């Protein structure tokens, strides 16, 4: 059996070549493409690939961020820095505006999040700028439905994906022809795994938001997991914030991204933690058994 640690630091460069090829196809086949930027490691990887694909030219499409208003401040800070650094155009649209316009309704209760509401704002943004292709950072190893989605995924007027009507993708030939009103979601890192992304970030010495690394933060415990305390989190009376040493494995909204207890301040240690992870990246966050394991691990590390 292979030892886990043997896989650290081995990034297959061919993946980068293939993704750059996809980036260039997007720029060539579409009139108004955009790169959907969330501030997470996958979309940061996309920006890096776009930068390489068109160098020494600038990235020929804007970075679009749908700001839920519930982002980590560190993510927003990083987003603005990256746009400046790469010279890419940055477009930000706000979920709050969709709510104010009555197009989206804020969820209630302790699990309230704006995750679902983002779609409304995204579709409006696509409409506003007439984007015909939106580049996203989804990977096929994330979940089973993704495992069969195409690299060029055609969406109808409502942004819907029809699994039954997918175009076959043969060899590396990408067919991005669409009718008026349709648009395409493009996933250049479809074939990357979470480990590939981390190894790439390491090899490329890429900057990532600080919340990926271990830091002290006020958290609450809910369902056996740690959640960042913030004004956006609807807390119950017995959910009392305390300080913990944590990092985030994925970067989403503060209301739906749980932290893991970790002392990892270097990328190698983060990759090691991922390799020996108790939970897979998209692991269901309300699984009882998993929560038990997470709880047990924190207890071992002396939090309680």
């Amino acid at each position, binding site marked *: 059996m292979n030892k886990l640690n043997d896989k650290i630091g081995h990034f297959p460069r061919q993946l980068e070549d293939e993704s750059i090829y996809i980036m260039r196809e997007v720029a060539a086949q579409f009139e108004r493409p955009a790169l959907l930027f969330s501030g997470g490691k996958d979309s940061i990887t996309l920006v890096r690939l776009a930068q390489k694909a068109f160098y020494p030219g600038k990235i020929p499409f804007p970075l679009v961020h749908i700001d839920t208003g519930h982002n980590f401040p560190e993510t927003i800070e990083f987003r603005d820095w990256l746009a400046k650094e790469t010279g890419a155009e940055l477009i930000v649209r706000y979920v709050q505006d969709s709510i104010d316009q009555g197009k989206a309704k804020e969820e209630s209760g302790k699990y309230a999040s704006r995750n679902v509401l983002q779609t409304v704002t995204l579709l409006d943004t696509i409409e506003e700028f007439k984007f015909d292709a939106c580049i996203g950072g989804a990977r096929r190893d994330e979940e*089973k439905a993704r495992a069969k989605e195409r690299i060029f995924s055609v969406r109808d007027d409502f942004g819907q994906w029809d699994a039954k009507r997918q*175009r076959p993708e043969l060899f590396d030939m990408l067919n991005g022809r669409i009718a008026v009103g349709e648009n395409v979601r493009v996933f250049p890192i479809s074939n990357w795994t979470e480990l590939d992304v981390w190894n790439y970030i390491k090899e490329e010495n890429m900057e990532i938001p600080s919340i990926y690394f271990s830091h002290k933060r006020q958290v609450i415990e809910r369902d056996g997991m740690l959640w960042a305390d913030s004004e956006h989190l609807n807390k119950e009376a017995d959910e009392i914030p305390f300080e913990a040493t944590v990092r985030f494995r994925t970067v989403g909204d503060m209301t739906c991204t749980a932290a893991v207890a970790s002392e990892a301040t270097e990328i190698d240690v983060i990759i090691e933690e991922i390799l020996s992870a108790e939970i897979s990246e998209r692991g269901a966050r309300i699984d009882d058994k998993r929560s038990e394991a997470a709880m047990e691990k924190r207890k071992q590390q002396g939090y309680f």
Partner: protein
Amino acid sequence: MDILRIATAGSVDDGKSTLIGRLLYETNSITKDKIEALESASKRKGLDFLDLSLLTDGLIAEREQGITIDVAHIYFSTPSRKYIIADTPGHVEYTRNMVTGASNAKVSLILVDARQGMVEQTARHLSIAAMLRIPKVIICVNKMDLVQYQESTFEEIKASLTELVKQTTFEGQEISFLPISSLYGQNITTKAEQMPWFTGNTLLGELEAFEYAETLAHAPARFPVQFVVRPMTEAYHDFRGYAGKISSGTFQVGDAIRVLPTGQESTIATIEKFESKLSHAKAGDSVVITLSTDIDISRGNTIVLASEANAPQLKDFSAQVCWLDHQALTPGKTYLLQHGINITKAKISQITERLDVVAQTATEGVDSLKLNEIGRIALRTAQPISADVYANNPSNGAFILIDEFSNSTVGVGFVQ
């Protein structure tokens, strides 16, 4: 570290799910939470072993719900290689899915149940692997545990396939036979204790040892121009670079080149990959090439070596096609032909014959090719395409046909 793409096809009953699960498990590619979930699911089913087929079980559930799963991608890695399995379930639209899934594969895994021996799917799979010029085929005789790991059973199956293999294979294709038990992990990543009579490599051993990159790098040099990089900034005011992914062969700085179809010639000044300048680049590399002279090149043009006197320019040619659409191919119709990144109109003048890949026979005088059917066609393109004969250079010899009205990809062709 490189990538090896593998194609598997077949029904769930032949032990394919268990084999894939076993590969993931023994290469440590499954996170702990998934293994724990497997353990409890196996226990719930009353099994005293880890049912690795459940790893791809989600796919079965989806099928029960009637969702078409054409190709699923599964990933695992070893310290030296990343593996991508394109898995095509064996049900309706079999050929279409198999061809689509296997189009990128360098290795084809064919499973044979040790109790049953060869079935129709074995023949279809072998033929398609040959049509796609997949350089390596591994025929895994699975479920050896159910035939008491007998060498005679393995040898009988091997012998019964010899004739078929001879009919379908092409020169240079490696074909090997492996006795395995996915369920008990025999010959997957470790030698089979139960089959001391088998002296060959394990499945993973075969995969790790297989090399193909050299062949690609030695094929004729083809560089399709994807995108013209013109920064027009102060620092790069006169910069004009041609971005693309080399589809075959090798290019070096200083090489004299010709642009197809215009025929203009120049010399390679630089080969660049982001901030680094390279001395050469080979098949698969995404690079930017600059030339010593200013000539007019646009997307869809192909750069070849000037030393190659007869680089292909095809307008009237024949091709093998596999039809992928519910609406049949009818002669006389115009489609869009996409070869690599280059698109031109194409008219199908004739369907020469329809092929039965299982029986290895051809029928002439057919007037349509339906979904999943394979045939030979004659066609004519509006603009010449720089495609090679597929058998000589697979990475530059395939094309897709697109319906102009639905925009769907309706067929795949292989230049003959």
